[in-house]
């Protein structure tokens, strides 16, 4: 999973674009989704983020779907709770709440929009580019190095974990609850020992290359072009204006329709 998303970020059409522009665009869209009048802000940010990811950035639809799957699960579990009110003054009373249903619907759109913005960032921007940007913005060197080294080790250990799990499965590990627990404990403890070993060996290798406390990991700058800044700043502004407009007028009919749908949904409960 993680390799797949990371691969998309590193090899996608937007991989070489400036990190500043990509972060700016995603954060700008996120701001529209959260701060522009609900639900219009999220309502315009969601399609915009998805369209950018699938269109210009060229991220395959399957990958976008896979990224969105886990958050959608969280949403499905928790948002419906908002539509139900609970009281216990006179015994436990559960009731359909129209206000709650509205909140749930707005929340769902907003959360989906937010996650789409984040997915746009994650699937177009390799993590080290973001760290490089944070470093230019003043993230202490020690922390930036630590994050980059962690990033490197995540994939080394991830490979080890995957191979290890396969090797255990080949020897009939992960059978039943007890077997799974046992196999997982072996894997995790073995992995921890291996982690320490890895760190020790990398230490030796890096000492040979001269990575002492005075040296830091270099990073490639990924300058953002003017046109990219234009998109990053312009699009959110346009969308924010659009959301304002929708909220002020012309949206009454749509809102009435949505209200009717919610009331109809309440009839079922």
């Amino acid at each position: 999973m993680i390799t797949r998303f990371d691969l998309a970020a590193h090899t996608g059409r937007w991989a070489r674009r400036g990190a500043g522009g990509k972060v700016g665009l995603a954060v700008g869209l996120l701001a529209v989704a959260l701060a522009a009048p609900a639900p219009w802000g999220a309502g315009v940010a969601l399609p915009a983020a998805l369209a950018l990811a699938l269109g210009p950035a060229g991220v395959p639809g399957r990958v976008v779907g896979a990224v969105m799957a886990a958050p959608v699960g969280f949403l499905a579990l928790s948002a419906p709770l908002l539509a139900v009110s609970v009281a216990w003054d006179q015994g436990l009373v559960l009731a359909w709440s129209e206000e709650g249903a509205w909140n749930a619907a707005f929340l769902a759109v907003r959360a989906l929009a937010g996650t789409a913005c984040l997915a746009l960032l994650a699937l177009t921007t390799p993590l080290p580019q973001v760290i490089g940007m944070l470093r230019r913005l003043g993230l202490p060197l020690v922390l930036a190095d630590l994050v980059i080294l962690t990033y490197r080790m995540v994939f080394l250990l991830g490979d080890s974990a995957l191979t290890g799990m396969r090797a255990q499965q080949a020897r009939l590990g992960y059978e039943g609850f007890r077997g799974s627990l046992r196999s997982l404990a072996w894997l995790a403890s073995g992995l921890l020992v291996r982690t320490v070993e890895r760190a020790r060996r990398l230490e030796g290798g890096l000492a040979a290359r001269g990575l002492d406390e005075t040296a830091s990991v270099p990073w490639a700058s990924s300058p953002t072009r003017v046109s990219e800044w234009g998109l990053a700043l312009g699009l959110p502004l346009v969308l924010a204006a659009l959301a304002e407009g929708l909220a002020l007028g012309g949206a009454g009919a749509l809102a009435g329709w949505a209200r009717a749908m919610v009331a109809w949904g309440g009839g079922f409960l």
Partner: protein
Amino acid sequence: MSDHAAALIEAHGLVFGYPGREAPALDGVSLRVPRGTRLALLGPNGAGKTTVLMHLNGALRPRAGEVCLDGVPQGYDRAALRAWRQRVQLVLQDPDDQLFAASVAEDVAFGPHNQGLAAAEIERRVAGALTDLDLEPLAALPPHLLSHGQRKRVALAGALAMAPEVLILDEPTAGLDHQGERRLLETLARLHARGTTLVLSTHDVDLAHAWADQVALFAAGRVIACGPPADILGDFNLLGAAGLAAPAVVRVARALEEAGIPLGNPRGRDLDALVARIRASCGSMAGRKDGPDAAAFGKPRGTGGAAFF
């Protein structure tokens, strides 16, 4: 057994791709592993050998195609995989990723324990595997204190303790030195003699030539040729297509033949056999007095004497 009888393992048209990569890792691979064979999957790095091996014990599931044991297509539910893996054991290339226990003996016991065997039987299996691989003196040590070669042996012992019908080894000689390789080949010979079917992957043409009954030549996710080592590894064009050189013994024997010194068939599968063959030719020539002037083969070296024919 006729050619049409089901082999112990058969793979039919396996297609597999790693997520996010465009080129398929396997592009329609079929293989046939009759019982008791020693099959080498030979090819350059990245040709798909490891990916095929992981299909042969169900670790990976093909996008298309199927794997059969004794002619029966295998399923991928829990019970089917369990039965499959009891019969087919896979040893990966890097032992570090496969050893988890705090001691060698404990690690080797992992499989038999999961098989649900009785304690006495587990102990018997572990002792047997440790003896087979000469690991008894190390039984109580933690794997991370062992050398690379020793760890490879522990990983192999862990698979052997499962008493599999088929043992699959991914690049088993990688990183081993001369002694380590010799030792591994002795172990494999013992297993073969006991009837274990063996499949290994390698990019070492000399190893494939010396060891295998059958060679499947891989290039870019396909099997481009399959047959006895003499045929596959004697075909220089074929090897070139796979980006490999011919084995040393084949090249030398070919050169000698072209130079008019045929060594006959079989030429010997490894260097020891080739050298013995050259020596034997020498012996058969020793009685003859009318040899050519040795100097013609190059500058004469010292006094010829008995070495001349």
